[in-house]
């Protein structure tokens, strides 16, 4: 990362500046020289040729400049090592790791449920210790190895056992999808079918920690010193206990009573898409719990919970250019929102015939406006292939699609937006904005709260310090960073909820806002 020159504590020169100063001084000196009669020794023309590029003087000045520049670059490099955020990878790994006793996190393996057909009441041995010789292990089609996490006995009625597996093999690849076949290779119970099937997509498999992930963790470690089981210590343990899979840990002291502590954990997104990517896998939670159990004294009542996702719906008004690849595709973007009310599907006759509400009528110049629908499950926009639009009266419009959209089943309540070529950028920015938010509170901690724990059981770190809870207008700078000058202005017409709601009981775990139904409209 580059440091602006004025932030460095010493002046920095560009390559060639010293050379030009040297030659300027030389020209001034030559100009003052006189011959025996006291007349100027050289004309400006002669001086210009003598100090021209690639000449003797120029070569000498350039060599001097190069040597000094290289020395200066070493100083600039050293200055950058002062802060973790600007330090080079080698300094982080060699010096900062030693200095703060904070190693890089290892890669983690994906985890998820597997259906294992077997005889009734078959016992499958599991272990939370990775590589335990007693645990049942299996391989996927690519040869990656997984082990059963918890011991399970299959039901009496002969249904398959549902096992929780965790990858001994680590990295993105261990997030295998539903339907993948796992072939058992070690400690297979008698009367078990030789292979099982993945029930839902695995998650929590991440590669080893990278510098951009490590630096914020190091900065938190420096800002809040962990020690003696304080909040920072709980967080540091939780973050390092789940290997590289933990994307956030929030501490609520006295969540239940004095002396109790609740830690809510979110997972890193990794290569997973969609709003549920931050829900930790069972394997991630187990790793964190095991790690904490090995460190926290017996008399402390502590609990590690996954965050609970809460959908936050948004209506965005964006001032983008029309008829442009950088903005709206159509000259007159349609449909439009009515203030906080987005254009959304009100009736689905079938997957090619839908009725939507829009504040304005479609432009008369076109029969098939370019529109797209927000797909909540993957946090993405999907373009709809419109054949015709007809008014149904009362601000409702019947849309006939030329073909059913792929990857989504149209349903009432989904939001329809005018199409933009930048839809992927906008969708990814919205997803990464929600990823920057932190978990909400577990009890009412407002100043009017009647709860005795209000002064203690607030979320740590506090949301005004890191990882805000509230979703809202801070999304606009994210979009401005992503879209650049194409986005002139933007406002949030509606966001609901803006703050994560309180759980009915602290034991349910805190809510975390994720992208719900999103509609974007011209401002």
């Amino acid at each position, binding site marked *: 990362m580059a440091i602006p020159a004025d932030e460095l504590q010493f002046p920095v020169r560009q390559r060639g500046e010293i050379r030009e100063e040297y030659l300027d001084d030389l020209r001034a000196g*030559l100009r003052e*020289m*006189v*011959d*025996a009669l006291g007349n100027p*020794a*050289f004309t400006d*023309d*002669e*001086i210009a*040729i*003598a*100090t*021209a*590029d*690639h*000449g*003797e*003087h*120029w*070569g000498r000045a*350039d*060599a*001097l400049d*190069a*040597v000094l520049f*290289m020395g200066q670059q070493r100083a600039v490099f050293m200055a950058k090592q002062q802060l973790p955020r600007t330090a080079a990878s080698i300094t982080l790994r060699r010096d900062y790791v030693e200095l703060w006793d904070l190693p890089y996190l290892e890669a983690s393996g994906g985890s998820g449920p597997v259906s294992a057909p077997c005889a009734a009441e078959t016992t499958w041995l599991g272990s939370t210790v990775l590589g335990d010789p007693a645990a049942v292990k299996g391989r996927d089609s690519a040869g990656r190895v997984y082990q059963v996490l918890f011991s399970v006995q299959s039901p009496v009625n002969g249904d398959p056992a549902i096992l929780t597996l965790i990858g001994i093999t680590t990295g993105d690849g261990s997030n295998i999808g539903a339907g993948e076949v796992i072939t058992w290779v070690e400690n297979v119970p008698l009367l078990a079918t030789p292979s099982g099937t993945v029930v839902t997509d695995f998650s929590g498999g991440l590669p080893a920690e990278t510098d951009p992930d490590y630096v914020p963790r190091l900065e938190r470690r420096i800002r809040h010193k962990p020690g003696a089981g304080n909040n920072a210590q709980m967080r540091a343990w939780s973050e390092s206990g789940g290997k590289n899979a933990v994307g956030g840990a929030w501490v609520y002291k006295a969540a239940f009573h004095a002396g109790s502590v609740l830690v809510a954990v979110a997972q890193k997104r990794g290569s997973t898409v969609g709003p549920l990517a931050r829900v930790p896998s069972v394997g991630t939670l187990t790793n964190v719990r095991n790690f904490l159990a090995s460190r926290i004294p017996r008399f402390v009542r502590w609990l590690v919970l996954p965050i609970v996702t809460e959908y936050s719906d948004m209506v965005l008004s964006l001032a983008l250019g029309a008829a442009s690849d950088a903005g709206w595709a159509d000259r007159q973007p349609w449909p439009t929102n009515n203030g906080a009310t987005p254009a959304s599907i009100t009736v689905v006759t079938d997957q090619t015939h839908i009725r939507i509400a829009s504040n304005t009528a479609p432009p008369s110049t076109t029969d098939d406006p370019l529109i797209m629908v927000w797909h909540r499950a993957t946090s993405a926009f999907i373009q709809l292939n419109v054949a015709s639009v007809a008014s149904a009266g009362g601000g409702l419009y019947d849309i006939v699609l030329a073909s059913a959209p792929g990857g989504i089943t149209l349903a009432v309540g989904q939001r329809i937006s005018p199409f933009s070529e930048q839809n992927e950028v906008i969708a990814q920015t919205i997803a990464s904005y929600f990823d920057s938010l932190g978990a909400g509170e577990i009890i009412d901690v407002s100043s009017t709260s009647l709860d005795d724990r209000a002064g203690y059981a607030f979320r740590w770190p506090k949301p005004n310090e890191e990882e805000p809870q509230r979703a809202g207008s801070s999304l606009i700078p994210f979009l401005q960073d992503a879209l650049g000058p194409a986005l002139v202005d933007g406002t949030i017409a509606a966001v609901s909820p803006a703050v994560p709601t309180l759980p009915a009981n602290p034991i349910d775990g805190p809510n975390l806002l994720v992208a719900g139904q999103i509609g974007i409209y011209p401002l």
Partner: protein
Amino acid sequence: MGPIIPAGIFPLSLWSPGTPPAPVIPVSILCPELDPNTGERRSLDVSADPTLTALGLQLRTMLASGSAVQNDGHKLFSIRKNSRDAPALIEHEINRIVKPFVDVGTLEVISIVIAAGPPAGSRGSIKLTVKLLRSGEIATLTA
């Protein structure tokens, strides 16, 4: 006994400094005269033609032979002399070296004579004749 000198007067009181010698004006040197082969300074008070000196610098410096010479010098060392391509490659390299000077109008190439290629074995020689347009002088460099 000599005459009585009035009080307060000494022999040295009557000394006058006379006319001081003219100051020695240092020789004005536009560009030091260097040995084109070694780069040694030949004289402290002889000024050489700067364009000719520059050409000498380019011909005796190996390009990128040190971290400070990334922009100056020749690449003749990387040309395989004992090959049929050698004369063309050398001529191209000489033209590349003189191009900055030709471009600004200080130099005109009169002739490039190259002895290289299989008959010359593993070594090559160049005789470069240029006309310094400012002074009209015709100079010959060998390398």
